[in-house]
Protein backbone atom coordinates (compact mmCIF):
# COMPACT_ATOMS: atom_id res chain seq x y z
CA UNK A 1 0.00 0.00 0.00
CA UNK A 2 2.63 2.44 1.16
CA UNK A 3 4.63 1.93 -1.98
CA UNK A 4 1.74 3.29 -4.03
CA UNK A 5 1.93 6.69 -2.42
CA UNK A 6 3.20 9.19 -4.96
CA UNK A 7 5.37 10.94 -2.40
CA UNK A 8 7.82 8.04 -2.39
CA UNK A 9 8.56 8.33 -6.07
CA UNK A 10 9.98 11.10 -8.14
CA UNK A 11 6.99 10.86 -10.50
CA UNK A 12 5.03 14.16 -10.54
CA UNK A 13 1.27 14.09 -9.96
CA UNK A 14 0.53 15.27 -13.45
CA UNK A 15 2.37 15.55 -16.72
CA UNK A 16 0.34 17.93 -18.88
CA UNK A 17 1.80 16.73 -22.15
CA UNK A 18 0.17 13.31 -21.51
CA UNK A 19 -3.27 14.79 -22.02
CA UNK A 20 -2.39 16.15 -25.45
CA UNK A 21 -0.49 13.03 -26.50
CA UNK A 22 -3.16 10.58 -25.39
CA UNK A 23 -6.21 12.73 -26.21
CA UNK A 24 -7.72 10.25 -28.70
CA UNK A 25 -7.42 7.44 -26.19
CA UNK A 26 -8.87 9.52 -23.36
CA UNK A 27 -11.74 10.63 -25.53
CA UNK A 28 -12.54 7.06 -26.59
CA UNK A 29 -12.51 5.89 -22.99
CA UNK A 30 -14.73 8.79 -21.94
CA UNK A 31 -17.23 7.90 -24.65
CA UNK A 32 -17.10 4.22 -23.62
CA UNK A 33 -17.75 5.32 -20.07
CA UNK A 34 -20.75 7.44 -21.01
CA UNK A 35 -22.09 4.66 -23.22
CA UNK A 36 -21.85 2.03 -20.52
CA UNK A 37 -23.44 4.36 -17.99
CA UNK A 38 -26.35 5.35 -20.21
CA UNK A 39 -27.07 1.81 -21.42
CA UNK A 40 -27.06 0.47 -17.86
CA UNK A 41 -29.23 3.24 -16.44
CA UNK A 42 -31.66 3.06 -19.36
CA UNK A 43 -31.93 -0.70 -19.08
CA UNK A 44 -32.22 -0.37 -15.31
CA UNK A 45 -35.02 2.15 -15.72
CA UNK A 46 -36.98 -0.12 -18.04
CA UNK A 47 -36.61 -3.17 -15.80
CA UNK A 48 -37.19 -1.18 -12.60
CA UNK A 49 -40.38 0.30 -14.05
CA UNK A 50 -41.62 -3.22 -14.73
CA UNK A 51 -40.66 -4.38 -11.24
CA UNK A 52 -42.19 -1.31 -9.61
CA UNK A 53 -45.38 -1.75 -11.64
CA UNK A 54 -45.65 -5.33 -10.38
CA UNK A 55 -44.97 -4.22 -6.80
CA UNK A 56 -47.59 -1.46 -7.02
CA UNK A 57 -50.14 -3.73 -8.63
CA UNK A 58 -49.64 -6.77 -6.40
CA UNK A 59 -48.85 -5.45 -2.98
CA UNK A 60 -47.44 -8.69 -1.60
CA UNK A 61 -44.63 -8.59 -4.19
CA UNK A 62 -43.30 -5.23 -3.10
CA UNK A 63 -41.45 -6.72 -0.08
CA UNK A 64 -39.63 -9.44 -2.03
CA UNK A 65 -38.85 -7.12 -4.96
CA UNK A 66 -37.27 -4.50 -2.71
CA UNK A 67 -35.38 -7.13 -0.73
CA UNK A 68 -33.91 -8.77 -3.82
CA UNK A 69 -32.91 -5.37 -5.21
CA UNK A 70 -31.23 -4.57 -1.90
CA UNK A 71 -29.36 -7.89 -1.86
CA UNK A 72 -28.04 -7.28 -5.39
CA UNK A 73 -26.98 -3.79 -4.30
CA UNK A 74 -24.91 -5.19 -1.42
CA UNK A 75 -22.82 -7.59 -3.53
CA UNK A 76 -19.36 -6.07 -3.89
CA UNK A 77 -19.00 -4.95 -7.49
CA UNK A 78 -15.62 -6.58 -8.03
CA UNK A 79 -17.06 -9.90 -6.90
CA UNK A 80 -20.16 -9.55 -9.07
CA UNK A 81 -18.11 -8.82 -12.20
CA UNK A 82 -15.95 -11.83 -11.37
CA UNK A 83 -18.93 -14.14 -10.86
CA UNK A 84 -20.51 -13.18 -14.16
CA UNK A 85 -17.47 -13.47 -16.43
CA UNK A 86 -17.37 -17.31 -16.50
CA UNK A 87 -20.93 -17.31 -17.84
CA UNK A 88 -20.74 -14.43 -20.25
CA UNK A 89 -17.11 -14.25 -21.22
CA UNK A 90 -15.11 -11.05 -21.23
CA UNK A 91 -17.56 -8.81 -23.01
CA UNK A 92 -19.75 -5.81 -22.30
CA UNK A 93 -22.49 -8.18 -21.18
CA UNK A 94 -21.31 -8.92 -17.62
CA UNK A 95 -20.62 -5.23 -17.08
CA UNK A 96 -24.06 -4.17 -18.28
CA UNK A 97 -25.79 -6.93 -16.30
CA UNK A 98 -24.05 -5.99 -13.08
CA UNK A 99 -24.42 -2.21 -13.54
CA UNK A 100 -28.10 -2.59 -14.40
CA UNK A 101 -28.60 -4.75 -11.32
CA UNK A 102 -27.10 -2.08 -9.11
CA UNK A 103 -29.65 0.49 -10.29
CA UNK A 104 -32.66 -1.60 -9.23
CA UNK A 105 -32.72 -0.69 -5.56
CA UNK A 106 -32.57 3.05 -6.13
CA UNK A 107 -34.89 3.14 -9.13
CA UNK A 108 -37.51 0.66 -7.93
CA UNK A 109 -37.88 2.39 -4.57
CA UNK A 110 -37.97 5.81 -6.25
CA UNK A 111 -40.72 4.75 -8.66
CA UNK A 112 -42.75 3.07 -5.91
CA UNK A 113 -42.42 6.08 -3.59
CA UNK A 114 -43.32 8.39 -6.46
CA UNK A 115 -46.55 6.64 -7.27
CA UNK A 116 -47.40 6.16 -3.60
CA UNK A 117 -46.93 9.91 -3.08
CA UNK A 118 -49.87 10.67 -5.37
CA UNK A 119 -52.62 11.88 -3.00
CA UNK A 120 -55.54 9.49 -2.69
CA UNK A 121 -57.96 12.32 -3.37
CA UNK A 122 -56.27 13.05 -6.69
CA UNK A 123 -56.59 9.44 -7.76
CA UNK A 124 -60.19 9.35 -6.60
CA UNK A 125 -61.01 12.55 -8.46
CA UNK A 126 -59.44 11.16 -11.62
CA UNK A 127 -61.52 7.98 -11.36
CA UNK A 128 -64.61 9.95 -10.42
CA UNK A 129 -64.33 12.05 -13.56
CA UNK A 130 -64.23 8.97 -15.74
CA UNK A 131 -60.57 8.89 -16.72
CA UNK A 132 -59.58 5.38 -17.80
CA UNK A 133 -57.04 3.61 -15.61
CA UNK A 134 -54.43 3.95 -18.32
CA UNK A 135 -55.06 7.63 -18.77
CA UNK A 136 -55.07 8.21 -15.03
CA UNK A 137 -51.66 6.55 -14.69
CA UNK A 138 -50.09 8.26 -17.69
CA UNK A 139 -51.49 11.76 -17.42
CA UNK A 140 -51.99 12.15 -13.66
CA UNK A 141 -49.99 9.70 -11.57
CA UNK A 142 -46.82 9.55 -13.67
CA UNK A 143 -46.34 13.33 -13.80
CA UNK A 144 -46.89 13.57 -10.06
CA UNK A 145 -44.40 10.74 -9.43
CA UNK A 146 -41.78 12.42 -11.62
CA UNK A 147 -39.94 14.39 -8.90
CA UNK A 148 -39.25 11.13 -7.04
CA UNK A 149 -38.36 9.25 -10.22
CA UNK A 150 -36.01 11.98 -11.42
CA UNK A 151 -34.22 11.99 -8.07
CA UNK A 152 -33.85 8.22 -8.36
CA UNK A 153 -32.44 8.50 -11.87
CA UNK A 154 -29.91 11.10 -10.71
CA UNK A 155 -28.69 8.92 -7.85
CA UNK A 156 -28.57 5.83 -10.07
CA UNK A 157 -26.63 7.70 -12.76
CA UNK A 158 -24.03 9.13 -10.41
CA UNK A 159 -23.57 5.74 -8.75
CA UNK A 160 -23.22 4.03 -12.12
CA UNK A 161 -20.59 6.50 -13.35
CA UNK A 162 -18.52 5.47 -10.32
CA UNK A 163 -19.13 1.76 -10.78
CA UNK A 164 -18.18 1.82 -14.47
CA UNK A 165 -14.60 2.61 -13.45
CA UNK A 166 -14.58 -0.68 -11.54
CA UNK A 167 -15.84 -2.52 -14.61
CA UNK A 168 -12.42 -1.89 -16.14
CA UNK A 169 -11.05 -4.85 -14.23
CA UNK A 170 -12.90 -7.09 -16.64
CA UNK A 171 -11.49 -5.08 -19.50
CA UNK A 172 -14.52 -3.21 -20.74
CA UNK A 173 -12.90 0.15 -21.25
CA UNK A 174 -14.03 3.39 -19.72
CA UNK A 175 -12.12 5.84 -17.58
CA UNK A 176 -11.28 3.04 -15.15
CA UNK A 177 -8.70 1.82 -17.66
CA UNK A 178 -6.73 5.02 -17.15
CA UNK A 179 -6.90 4.64 -13.40
CA UNK A 180 -5.77 0.99 -13.48
CA UNK A 181 -3.02 1.84 -15.93
CA UNK A 182 -1.75 4.59 -13.70
CA UNK A 183 -1.80 2.38 -10.64
CA UNK A 184 0.00 -0.47 -12.36
CA UNK A 185 2.76 1.73 -13.71
CA UNK A 186 2.97 4.10 -10.76
CA UNK A 187 2.28 6.75 -13.37
CA UNK A 188 -0.05 9.19 -11.69
CA UNK A 189 -1.13 11.31 -14.64
CA UNK A 190 -3.58 8.83 -16.27
CA UNK A 191 -4.96 7.94 -12.83
CA UNK A 192 -5.72 11.56 -12.04
CA UNK A 193 -7.10 12.27 -15.51
CA UNK A 194 -9.36 9.20 -15.19
CA UNK A 195 -10.55 10.12 -11.71
CA UNK A 196 -11.13 13.79 -12.47
CA UNK A 197 -13.03 13.04 -15.67
CA UNK A 198 -15.14 10.44 -13.87
CA UNK A 199 -16.11 12.92 -11.17
CA UNK A 200 -16.74 15.65 -13.76
CA UNK A 201 -18.89 13.31 -15.81
CA UNK A 202 -20.96 12.43 -12.75
CA UNK A 203 -21.46 16.11 -11.91
CA UNK A 204 -22.37 17.08 -15.46
CA UNK A 205 -24.90 14.27 -15.81
CA UNK A 206 -26.37 15.08 -12.40
CA UNK A 207 -26.73 18.75 -13.26
CA UNK A 208 -28.27 17.92 -16.63
CA UNK A 209 -30.81 15.59 -15.06
CA UNK A 210 -31.61 18.14 -12.37
CA UNK A 211 -32.32 20.78 -15.01
CA UNK A 212 -34.39 18.30 -17.00
CA UNK A 213 -36.40 17.44 -13.89
CA UNK A 214 -37.09 21.11 -13.20
CA UNK A 215 -38.15 21.69 -16.77
CA UNK A 216 -40.69 18.85 -16.79
CA UNK A 217 -42.23 19.62 -13.37
CA UNK A 218 -42.95 23.36 -13.54
CA UNK A 219 -45.78 23.11 -10.97
CA UNK A 220 -43.40 21.90 -8.28
CA UNK A 221 -41.53 25.21 -8.37
CA UNK A 222 -44.64 27.40 -8.35
CA UNK A 223 -46.38 25.53 -5.57
CA UNK A 224 -44.39 27.01 -2.71
CA UNK A 225 -44.76 30.59 -3.84
CA UNK A 226 -48.41 31.12 -2.81
Amino acid at each position, binding site marked *: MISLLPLQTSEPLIRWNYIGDQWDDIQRKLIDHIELTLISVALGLILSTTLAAIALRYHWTSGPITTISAVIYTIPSVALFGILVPYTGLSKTPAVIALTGYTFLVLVTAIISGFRSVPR*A*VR*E*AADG*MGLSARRRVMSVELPLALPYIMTGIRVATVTTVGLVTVASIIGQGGLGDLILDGLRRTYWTPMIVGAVLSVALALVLDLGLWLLGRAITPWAR*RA*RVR
Partner: protein
Amino acid sequence: MALDAATAPETPLADERPAIVLRAVTKRFPGMDHLAVDALSLEIPRGSIVALIGPSGCGKTTTLRMINRLIEPTSGSIEIEGEDVTRMPATELRRGIGYVIQQVGLFPHRTVSQNIATVPRTLGWEKARIRARIDELVELVGLDPAMLGRYPDELSGGQQQRVGVARALAADPPVLLMDEPFGAVDPIVRGRLQDELISLQRRVHKTIVIVTHDIDEAIKLADRVALLNVGGIVEQYAPPDEILAAPASEFVEQFVGDDRSSKRLTLARVADLPFSQGPVVDAGATLEEARAAMEAHRTDWVGLVDDGAFLGWVDGRELGPGDAPFDRPRERPAAQVHPESTLREAMEIIMTSSTSVAVIDDGGGFGGVVTLEGIRAALAEGVPERVA
Protein backbone atom coordinates in the same frame (compact mmCIF):
# COMPACT_ATOMS: atom_id res chain seq x y z
CA MET B 1 -101.37 34.36 -2.47
CA ALA B 2 -104.29 32.78 -0.72
CA LEU B 3 -103.53 32.02 2.86
CA ASP B 4 -105.26 28.75 3.10
CA ALA B 5 -104.94 26.29 5.94
CA ALA B 6 -103.76 23.74 3.43
CA THR B 7 -101.27 25.94 1.62
CA ALA B 8 -99.44 23.54 -0.62
CA PRO B 9 -96.27 25.18 -1.85
CA GLU B 10 -95.10 24.29 -5.29
CA THR B 11 -93.73 20.79 -5.65
CA PRO B 12 -93.15 20.86 -9.38
CA LEU B 13 -91.07 17.69 -9.35
CA ALA B 14 -93.39 15.50 -7.39
CA ASP B 15 -95.12 13.97 -10.33
CA GLU B 16 -92.06 13.43 -12.46
CA ARG B 17 -89.98 10.31 -12.57
CA PRO B 18 -87.16 10.50 -10.04
CA ALA B 19 -83.71 11.17 -11.51
CA ILE B 20 -81.96 8.51 -9.43
CA VAL B 21 -83.51 5.35 -8.06
CA LEU B 22 -81.73 2.99 -5.68
CA ARG B 23 -83.41 -0.37 -5.27
CA ALA B 24 -82.41 -2.63 -2.39
CA VAL B 25 -78.79 -1.64 -2.88
CA THR B 26 -76.54 -3.75 -0.70
CA LYS B 27 -72.80 -3.63 -0.19
CA ARG B 28 -70.70 -6.16 1.63
CA PHE B 29 -66.98 -5.45 1.65
CA PRO B 30 -64.77 -8.51 1.48
CA GLY B 31 -63.60 -9.59 4.92
CA MET B 32 -66.35 -7.69 6.73
CA ASP B 33 -68.97 -9.71 8.56
CA HIS B 34 -71.56 -6.92 8.62
CA LEU B 35 -73.10 -5.18 5.66
CA ALA B 36 -71.87 -1.69 4.86
CA VAL B 37 -75.19 -0.89 3.22
CA ASP B 38 -78.23 -3.09 3.75
CA ALA B 39 -80.93 -3.17 1.07
CA LEU B 40 -81.12 0.60 0.76
CA SER B 41 -83.90 1.97 -1.43
CA LEU B 42 -84.13 5.66 -2.22
CA GLU B 43 -85.70 7.83 -4.88
CA ILE B 44 -83.99 11.09 -5.64
CA PRO B 45 -86.26 13.64 -7.32
CA ARG B 46 -84.92 15.41 -10.39
CA GLY B 47 -83.57 18.86 -9.75
CA SER B 48 -83.49 18.49 -6.00
CA ILE B 49 -80.75 18.38 -3.42
CA VAL B 50 -80.77 15.25 -1.30
CA ALA B 51 -78.48 14.99 1.70
CA LEU B 52 -77.23 11.64 2.94
CA ILE B 53 -76.40 12.03 6.59
CA GLY B 54 -75.62 9.81 9.52
CA PRO B 55 -72.91 8.76 11.97
CA SER B 56 -69.64 7.30 10.66
CA GLY B 57 -70.13 3.76 9.51
CA CYS B 58 -73.62 4.44 8.25
CA GLY B 59 -72.56 3.84 4.66
CA LYS B 60 -73.39 7.30 3.35
CA THR B 61 -70.17 7.68 1.39
CA THR B 62 -70.34 4.07 0.22
CA THR B 63 -73.86 4.73 -1.06
CA LEU B 64 -72.73 7.86 -2.88
CA ARG B 65 -69.80 6.06 -4.47
CA MET B 66 -72.04 3.26 -5.65
CA ILE B 67 -74.01 5.76 -7.71
CA ASN B 68 -70.99 6.49 -9.91
CA ARG B 69 -69.67 2.96 -9.44
CA LEU B 70 -66.45 3.89 -7.68
CA ILE B 71 -67.79 1.07 -5.52
CA GLU B 72 -69.76 -1.73 -7.14
CA PRO B 73 -72.88 -2.83 -5.24
CA THR B 74 -72.99 -6.43 -4.05
CA SER B 75 -76.64 -6.61 -5.02
CA GLY B 76 -79.54 -4.36 -5.89
CA SER B 77 -79.75 -1.88 -8.73
CA ILE B 78 -79.20 1.81 -9.31
CA GLU B 79 -80.86 3.71 -12.12
CA ILE B 80 -80.08 7.18 -13.36
CA GLU B 81 -82.78 8.63 -15.62
CA GLY B 82 -84.27 5.16 -15.94
CA GLU B 83 -81.03 3.56 -17.06
CA ASP B 84 -79.23 0.92 -15.02
CA VAL B 85 -75.77 2.29 -14.22
CA THR B 86 -74.13 -1.10 -14.81
CA ARG B 87 -75.34 -1.03 -18.42
CA MET B 88 -72.55 1.24 -19.61
CA PRO B 89 -68.81 1.29 -19.00
CA ALA B 90 -67.98 2.89 -15.64
CA THR B 91 -65.75 5.54 -17.24
CA GLU B 92 -68.51 6.64 -19.59
CA LEU B 93 -71.02 6.74 -16.74
CA ARG B 94 -68.73 8.89 -14.60
CA ARG B 95 -68.15 11.43 -17.36
CA GLY B 96 -71.85 12.15 -17.13
CA ILE B 97 -71.84 12.63 -13.36
CA GLY B 98 -70.17 15.53 -11.57
CA TYR B 99 -68.12 14.46 -8.56
CA VAL B 100 -66.85 16.69 -5.78
CA ILE B 101 -64.91 15.42 -2.76
CA GLN B 102 -63.82 16.96 0.51
CA GLN B 103 -60.10 17.06 -0.31
CA VAL B 104 -61.09 18.43 -3.73
CA GLY B 105 -58.44 16.31 -5.45
CA LEU B 106 -57.38 18.92 -7.99
CA PHE B 107 -54.51 17.79 -10.19
CA PRO B 108 -51.50 19.63 -8.75
CA HIS B 109 -49.59 19.49 -12.05
CA ARG B 110 -52.36 21.10 -14.04
CA THR B 111 -53.39 24.74 -14.00
CA VAL B 112 -56.84 25.74 -12.82
CA SER B 113 -58.18 25.98 -16.37
CA GLN B 114 -56.62 22.65 -17.32
CA ASN B 115 -58.23 21.10 -14.24
CA ILE B 116 -61.64 22.47 -15.16
CA ALA B 117 -61.21 21.24 -18.74
CA THR B 118 -60.51 17.63 -17.71
CA VAL B 119 -63.83 16.03 -18.63
CA PRO B 120 -64.55 18.17 -21.72
CA ARG B 121 -61.11 17.25 -23.03
CA THR B 122 -61.74 13.59 -22.34
CA LEU B 123 -64.99 13.94 -24.25
CA GLY B 124 -63.10 15.48 -27.16
CA TRP B 125 -64.63 18.94 -27.13
CA GLU B 126 -63.14 21.55 -29.43
CA LYS B 127 -60.75 24.06 -27.90
CA ALA B 128 -63.00 27.06 -28.48
CA ARG B 129 -65.94 25.32 -26.86
CA ILE B 130 -63.87 24.36 -23.84
CA ARG B 131 -62.60 27.91 -23.51
CA ALA B 132 -66.11 29.34 -23.65
CA ARG B 133 -67.32 26.82 -21.10
CA ILE B 134 -64.48 27.68 -18.72
CA ASP B 135 -65.40 31.37 -18.89
CA GLU B 136 -68.99 30.48 -18.11
CA LEU B 137 -68.04 28.28 -15.15
CA VAL B 138 -65.64 30.80 -13.67
CA GLU B 139 -68.51 33.25 -13.52
CA LEU B 140 -70.94 30.62 -12.21
CA VAL B 141 -68.82 29.53 -9.25
CA GLY B 142 -67.50 33.00 -8.50
CA LEU B 143 -63.86 32.47 -9.31
CA ASP B 144 -61.42 35.24 -10.15
CA PRO B 145 -60.42 34.70 -13.83
CA ALA B 146 -56.85 35.63 -12.83
CA MET B 147 -56.70 32.25 -11.08
CA LEU B 148 -57.07 30.30 -14.32
CA GLY B 149 -53.35 30.17 -15.07
CA ARG B 150 -52.34 29.22 -11.54
CA TYR B 151 -51.59 25.84 -10.09
CA PRO B 152 -53.96 24.47 -7.40
CA ASP B 153 -51.34 24.74 -4.64
CA GLU B 154 -51.28 28.51 -5.20
CA LEU B 155 -54.98 28.78 -4.26
CA SER B 156 -56.73 29.08 -0.91
CA GLY B 157 -58.95 26.26 0.34
CA GLY B 158 -62.15 28.05 -0.62
CA GLN B 159 -60.85 28.84 -4.09
CA GLN B 160 -59.78 25.22 -4.57
CA GLN B 161 -63.25 24.03 -3.64
CA ARG B 162 -64.80 26.44 -6.17
CA VAL B 163 -62.48 25.03 -8.84
CA GLY B 164 -63.54 21.54 -7.76
CA VAL B 165 -67.20 22.44 -8.29
CA ALA B 166 -66.43 24.09 -11.64
CA ARG B 167 -64.51 21.01 -12.73
CA ALA B 168 -67.41 18.75 -11.73
CA LEU B 169 -69.89 20.89 -13.67
CA ALA B 170 -67.64 21.32 -16.70
CA ALA B 171 -69.45 18.96 -19.06
CA ASP B 172 -72.83 20.06 -17.69
CA PRO B 173 -73.78 16.71 -16.14
CA PRO B 174 -77.40 16.39 -14.94
CA VAL B 175 -76.28 14.75 -11.71
CA LEU B 176 -73.77 16.04 -9.16
CA LEU B 177 -72.40 13.90 -6.33
CA MET B 178 -70.73 15.73 -3.46
CA ASP B 179 -68.90 13.95 -0.65
CA GLU B 180 -68.53 16.30 2.34
CA PRO B 181 -67.64 19.07 -0.10
CA PHE B 182 -67.23 21.79 2.53
CA GLY B 183 -65.74 19.66 5.28
CA ALA B 184 -62.19 20.90 4.87
CA VAL B 185 -62.75 24.67 4.90
CA ASP B 186 -63.22 26.95 7.88
CA PRO B 187 -66.77 27.74 9.08
CA ILE B 188 -66.95 31.20 7.53
CA VAL B 189 -65.88 30.00 4.11
CA ARG B 190 -68.12 26.96 4.52
CA GLY B 191 -71.18 29.14 5.11
CA ARG B 192 -70.37 31.23 2.07
CA LEU B 193 -69.80 28.17 -0.14
CA GLN B 194 -73.12 26.73 1.06
CA ASP B 195 -74.93 29.93 0.14
CA GLU B 196 -73.20 29.88 -3.22
CA LEU B 197 -74.28 26.30 -3.81
CA ILE B 198 -77.88 27.23 -3.09
CA SER B 199 -77.85 30.15 -5.52
CA LEU B 200 -75.92 28.09 -8.07
CA GLN B 201 -78.55 25.36 -7.83
CA ARG B 202 -81.27 27.92 -8.57
CA ARG B 203 -79.55 28.53 -11.89
CA VAL B 204 -78.45 25.04 -12.90
CA HIS B 205 -81.18 22.77 -11.45
CA LYS B 206 -78.99 19.73 -11.07
CA THR B 207 -79.94 16.61 -9.22
CA ILE B 208 -77.51 16.79 -6.33
CA VAL B 209 -76.69 14.10 -3.80
CA ILE B 210 -74.56 15.44 -0.98
CA VAL B 211 -72.97 13.44 1.82
CA THR B 212 -72.47 15.29 5.07
CA HIS B 213 -72.18 14.59 8.78
CA ASP B 214 -73.37 18.08 9.67
CA ILE B 215 -77.12 18.21 10.35
CA ASP B 216 -77.19 21.99 10.00
CA GLU B 217 -75.61 21.72 6.56
CA ALA B 218 -78.17 19.08 5.56
CA ILE B 219 -81.06 21.24 6.79
CA LYS B 220 -79.72 24.30 5.05
CA LEU B 221 -78.97 22.77 1.68
CA ALA B 222 -81.24 19.81 1.15
CA ASP B 223 -84.75 19.51 -0.19
CA ARG B 224 -84.85 16.06 1.32
CA VAL B 225 -82.67 14.47 3.96
CA ALA B 226 -81.96 10.76 4.19
CA LEU B 227 -80.84 9.95 7.70
CA LEU B 228 -78.90 6.69 7.75
CA ASN B 229 -78.07 4.49 10.70
CA VAL B 230 -75.04 2.22 10.95
CA GLY B 231 -75.21 -0.43 8.25
CA GLY B 232 -76.88 1.79 5.68
CA ILE B 233 -80.37 1.59 7.12
CA VAL B 234 -82.65 4.50 6.25
CA GLU B 235 -84.10 5.79 9.52
CA GLN B 236 -86.00 8.59 7.85
CA TYR B 237 -86.18 10.10 4.40
CA ALA B 238 -88.09 13.35 4.40
CA PRO B 239 -87.83 17.10 3.89
CA PRO B 240 -85.72 18.76 6.60
CA ASP B 241 -88.71 20.25 8.40
CA GLU B 242 -90.40 16.92 8.74
CA ILE B 243 -87.23 15.37 10.10
CA LEU B 244 -87.08 18.13 12.70
CA ALA B 245 -90.79 18.21 13.44
CA ALA B 246 -91.57 14.55 13.46
CA PRO B 247 -88.47 12.43 13.99
CA ALA B 248 -89.36 8.92 12.90
CA SER B 249 -87.36 7.28 15.67
CA GLU B 250 -85.40 7.93 18.79
CA PHE B 251 -82.25 7.66 16.73
CA VAL B 252 -83.36 10.51 14.47
CA GLU B 253 -84.40 12.57 17.47
CA GLN B 254 -81.00 12.17 19.07
CA PHE B 255 -79.17 12.80 15.84
CA VAL B 256 -80.89 16.09 15.04
CA GLY B 257 -80.27 17.36 18.57
CA ASP B 258 -82.23 19.12 21.30
CA ASP B 259 -82.63 22.39 19.47
CA ARG B 260 -84.65 21.02 16.62
CA SER B 261 -87.53 23.43 17.28
CA SER B 262 -85.39 26.50 16.89
CA LYS B 263 -83.79 24.93 13.82
CA ARG B 264 -87.25 24.60 12.37
CA LEU B 265 -87.95 28.32 12.83
CA THR B 266 -85.47 29.08 10.09
CA LEU B 267 -87.06 26.55 7.78
CA ALA B 268 -90.77 27.30 8.04
CA ARG B 269 -92.30 30.40 6.53
CA VAL B 270 -95.21 32.50 7.68
CA ALA B 271 -97.23 31.22 4.73
CA ASP B 272 -96.83 27.71 6.10
CA LEU B 273 -98.78 28.60 9.24
CA PRO B 274 -102.47 27.79 9.49
CA PHE B 275 -104.41 30.87 8.51
CA SER B 276 -105.34 32.97 11.50
CA GLN B 277 -107.73 35.86 11.24
CA GLY B 278 -106.82 37.01 14.72
CA PRO B 279 -108.76 39.60 16.81
CA VAL B 280 -109.80 41.45 13.72
CA VAL B 281 -113.20 42.77 12.83
CA ASP B 282 -114.74 44.60 9.94
CA ALA B 283 -114.55 48.40 10.01
CA GLY B 284 -118.29 48.62 10.53
CA ALA B 285 -118.37 46.22 13.47
CA THR B 286 -120.27 47.05 16.65
CA LEU B 287 -118.75 47.29 20.10
CA GLU B 288 -120.15 43.90 20.97
CA GLU B 289 -118.58 42.27 17.94
CA ALA B 290 -115.23 43.84 18.79
CA ARG B 291 -115.46 42.67 22.41
CA ALA B 292 -116.33 39.17 21.28
CA ALA B 293 -113.32 39.08 18.97
CA MET B 294 -110.99 40.30 21.75
CA GLU B 295 -112.44 37.81 24.19
CA ALA B 296 -112.04 34.98 21.76
CA HIS B 297 -108.36 35.82 21.36
CA ARG B 298 -107.82 36.96 24.95
CA THR B 299 -106.33 40.27 23.91
CA ASP B 300 -106.87 43.96 24.61
CA TRP B 301 -106.42 44.99 21.00
CA VAL B 302 -108.74 44.70 18.09
CA GLY B 303 -107.78 45.18 14.48
CA LEU B 304 -109.98 46.80 11.85
CA VAL B 305 -110.14 45.64 8.30
CA ASP B 306 -111.82 47.50 5.52
CA ASP B 307 -112.29 45.76 2.23
CA GLY B 308 -109.25 43.53 2.66
CA ALA B 309 -106.96 46.32 3.87
CA PHE B 310 -105.74 46.51 7.43
CA LEU B 311 -106.60 49.87 8.97
CA GLY B 312 -104.89 49.58 12.33
CA TRP B 313 -105.22 48.49 15.92
CA VAL B 314 -107.71 49.90 18.44
CA ASP B 315 -107.02 49.73 22.16
CA GLY B 316 -109.94 47.73 23.58
CA ARG B 317 -109.49 49.12 27.11
CA GLU B 318 -110.48 52.57 25.84
CA LEU B 319 -113.67 51.35 24.25
CA GLY B 320 -116.54 52.77 26.32
CA PRO B 321 -120.19 51.83 26.06
CA GLY B 322 -121.67 53.07 22.84
CA ASP B 323 -118.33 53.63 21.14
CA ALA B 324 -118.04 52.39 17.62
CA PRO B 325 -114.59 50.85 17.24
CA PHE B 326 -114.14 52.68 13.94
CA ASP B 327 -114.34 56.06 15.70
CA ARG B 328 -111.54 55.35 18.15
CA PRO B 329 -107.94 56.38 17.45
CA ARG B 330 -106.09 53.66 15.62
CA GLU B 331 -102.49 52.66 15.78
CA ARG B 332 -100.81 51.72 12.53
CA PRO B 333 -99.43 48.20 12.61
CA ALA B 334 -95.71 48.52 13.25
CA ALA B 335 -95.25 44.79 13.27
CA GLN B 336 -95.62 43.51 9.77
CA VAL B 337 -94.34 40.35 8.22
CA HIS B 338 -94.44 38.93 4.75
CA PRO B 339 -95.79 35.49 3.87
CA GLU B 340 -92.26 34.54 2.78
CA SER B 341 -90.67 35.63 6.08
CA THR B 342 -89.25 32.79 8.12
CA LEU B 343 -90.86 32.06 11.47
CA ARG B 344 -87.66 33.18 13.12
CA GLU B 345 -88.02 36.61 11.52
CA ALA B 346 -91.71 36.74 12.50
CA MET B 347 -90.81 35.87 16.06
CA GLU B 348 -88.20 38.60 16.15
CA ILE B 349 -90.78 41.16 15.01
CA ILE B 350 -93.44 40.01 17.48
CA MET B 351 -91.00 40.17 20.38
CA THR B 352 -90.37 43.84 19.70
CA SER B 353 -93.94 44.95 19.01
CA SER B 354 -96.51 46.20 21.48
CA THR B 355 -99.33 44.01 20.23
CA SER B 356 -97.63 40.61 20.46
CA VAL B 357 -99.10 40.08 17.04
CA ALA B 358 -97.63 40.61 13.60
CA VAL B 359 -99.84 41.46 10.70
CA ILE B 360 -99.20 39.61 7.52
CA ASP B 361 -98.90 42.08 4.73
CA ASP B 362 -99.73 40.15 1.64
CA GLY B 363 -98.72 42.72 -0.90
CA GLY B 364 -100.80 45.54 0.57
CA GLY B 365 -103.71 43.41 1.71
CA PHE B 366 -104.48 41.88 5.06
CA GLY B 367 -103.29 38.31 5.15
CA GLY B 368 -104.01 37.39 8.73
CA VAL B 369 -101.98 37.66 11.88
CA VAL B 370 -99.11 35.76 13.40
CA THR B 371 -98.91 35.29 17.14
CA LEU B 372 -96.30 33.66 19.32
CA GLU B 373 -98.99 31.21 20.30
CA GLY B 374 -99.60 30.45 16.63
CA ILE B 375 -95.89 29.79 16.01
CA ARG B 376 -95.65 27.65 19.11
CA ALA B 377 -98.75 25.72 18.12
CA ALA B 378 -97.44 25.14 14.61
CA LEU B 379 -94.17 23.79 15.97
CA ALA B 380 -96.01 21.64 18.50
CA GLU B 381 -98.48 20.31 15.97
CA GLY B 382 -95.48 19.45 14.00
CA VAL B 383 -95.89 19.31 10.45
CA PRO B 384 -97.12 22.18 8.37
CA GLU B 385 -99.33 20.93 5.59
CA ARG B 386 -96.73 20.84 2.83
CA VAL B 387 -94.60 18.21 4.47
CA ALA B 388 -97.38 16.02 5.82
